[in-house]
């Protein structure tokens, strides 16, 4: 690189090296403060909106699909299975292109944000439904039999007995999917949603600061994922069934 920078004094030795590094960091502070971080905060807000709206809807839809697959009558089962095959099989990027660029040609204009949101919900729910299906099927048959022997309808038995247990078992999978969601939400920028990654890309190419911009974004995602991980651990502990799940179990067994 051409050495046309302002400091004419050649930096010698380790002290000079650190000196010049410190100088270059200090000289970047205005860029971080006035340009990069404000843009990333805006992007983060959009990312959060996408994630926070997708997660519960993707979860509920996934649960509905999973319950339909395990307990539904035959036609409902097949529909649910088709849903999973289609939305799990279709690459999310392609799905987003279809929603954003394809649907307007048949008169459905969702717009950027809605396209991303709908795409994420479809994808997220398809994956969640598989985790949930596995969990539902792992609950012993006797649980539903006992519920029915007390006069509960099948729906009541599934809702009050099987699902609460299955949710606990599906939690690691579903939270994994939630963490994926945080990260694949960056795909929204291909349909012109300026979320975290999109915001960084704009700044990076405008100021030619690729390393700084994406390193900062990486840290943002890392923080989001770490917070989520703690949240999941808290949830797992809160809903652990004494004597069954969770690490140290305080019981009075054998008393």
């Amino acid at each position, binding site marked *: 690189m051409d050495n046309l920078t302002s400091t004419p004094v050649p930096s010698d030795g380790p002290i000079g090296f650190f000196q010049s590094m410190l100088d270059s960091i200090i000289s970047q502070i205005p860029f971080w403060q006035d340009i990069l971080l404000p843009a990333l905060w805006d992007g983060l807000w959009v990312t959060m909106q996408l994630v926070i709206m997708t997660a519960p809807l993707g979860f509920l839809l996934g649960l509905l699909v999973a319950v339909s697959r395990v307990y539904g009558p035959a036609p409902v089962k097949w529909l649910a299975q088709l849903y999973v095959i289609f939305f799990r099989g279709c690459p999310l990027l392609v799905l987003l292109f279809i929603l954003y660029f394809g649907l307007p040609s048949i008169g459905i204009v969702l717009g950027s944000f809605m396209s991303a949101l709908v795409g994420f919900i479809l994808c997220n729910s398809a994956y969640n439904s598989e985790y949930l299906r596995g969990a539902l099927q792992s609950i012993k048959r006797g*649980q539903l039999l006992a*519920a029915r022997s007390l006069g509960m309808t099948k729906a009541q038995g599934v809702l009050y*007995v099987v699902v609460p247990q299955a949710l606990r078992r599906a939690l690691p999978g579903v939270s994994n999917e939630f963490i994926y969601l945080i990260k694949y939400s960056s795909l929204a920028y291909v349909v012109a949603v300026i979320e975290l990654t999109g915001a960084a890309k704009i700044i990076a190419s405008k100021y030619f600061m690729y390393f700084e911009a994406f390193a900062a974004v990486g840290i943002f995602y890392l923080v989001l994922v770490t917070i989520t991980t703690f949240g999941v651990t808290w949830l797992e502990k809160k809903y652990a069934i004494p004597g069954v799940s969770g690490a140290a179990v305080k019981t009075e067994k054998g008393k």
Partner: protein
Amino acid sequence: MSDVPILKVENLCKSYGDLEVLKSVSFEVRKGEKKVFVGPSGTGKSTLLRCINQLTAPDSGFVYLNGEEIVHSGKKINAYRQKMGMVFQNFNLFDHLTAVRNVELALLKVKKMDRKSAREKAMYELEQVGMADRADFYPAQLSGGQAQRVSIARALAMDPEVMLFDEPTSALDPELKREVMEVMRTLAAQGMTCIVVTHEMKFATSFATEIYLMEKGEIVEHGPPSEIPTSPNFVKTRAFMGSYADE
């Protein structure tokens, strides 16, 4: 009381593929009677119980509860099932709920009782089986005998007219069997109508008003407990049942 039996089973048949599990089984139960079904494993005793409350659909035959046919009752079966408390070999307590919530769940969701009276009723039933002090324990924190007593309380909470016991002590250690049998005897003494499937011969003879001997899906013999253990058929069957018979 009229002389309509509480429960009447008529020509009940059930096959799994080529295997005929029940071959036209019929019997009647009147109020307060204790019918105990014994016989070798795999002779359809448990299937019979499940076909009575329709957890398993019979291929043909009829079941009458207080004179009403229930095999073809459609959605009304949920109401009928409340009248037939079922106790399973493996307890089948709801693993995610404490003992008291196991008992009150159906009170809340099926009987639509309010929280306070459901809790009172659940605690009362737990007291009946001596489990009130374990009300807040989860199933995994209970011994097998305790779990089975909670499951009996859960069935009793629905105020059933007849209790179906499906090998209630088979999964238990000898020590724990006794506490469950004790609860069943108390229940019987209070006049509860019971149908029991068991391998415990001693218990059967002291508990039953009538013993049914089943073999290969059929009732081969039945009679009061004073007669059955000495009947030729039973002596023959004893060999099949092996060690069970002497416990």
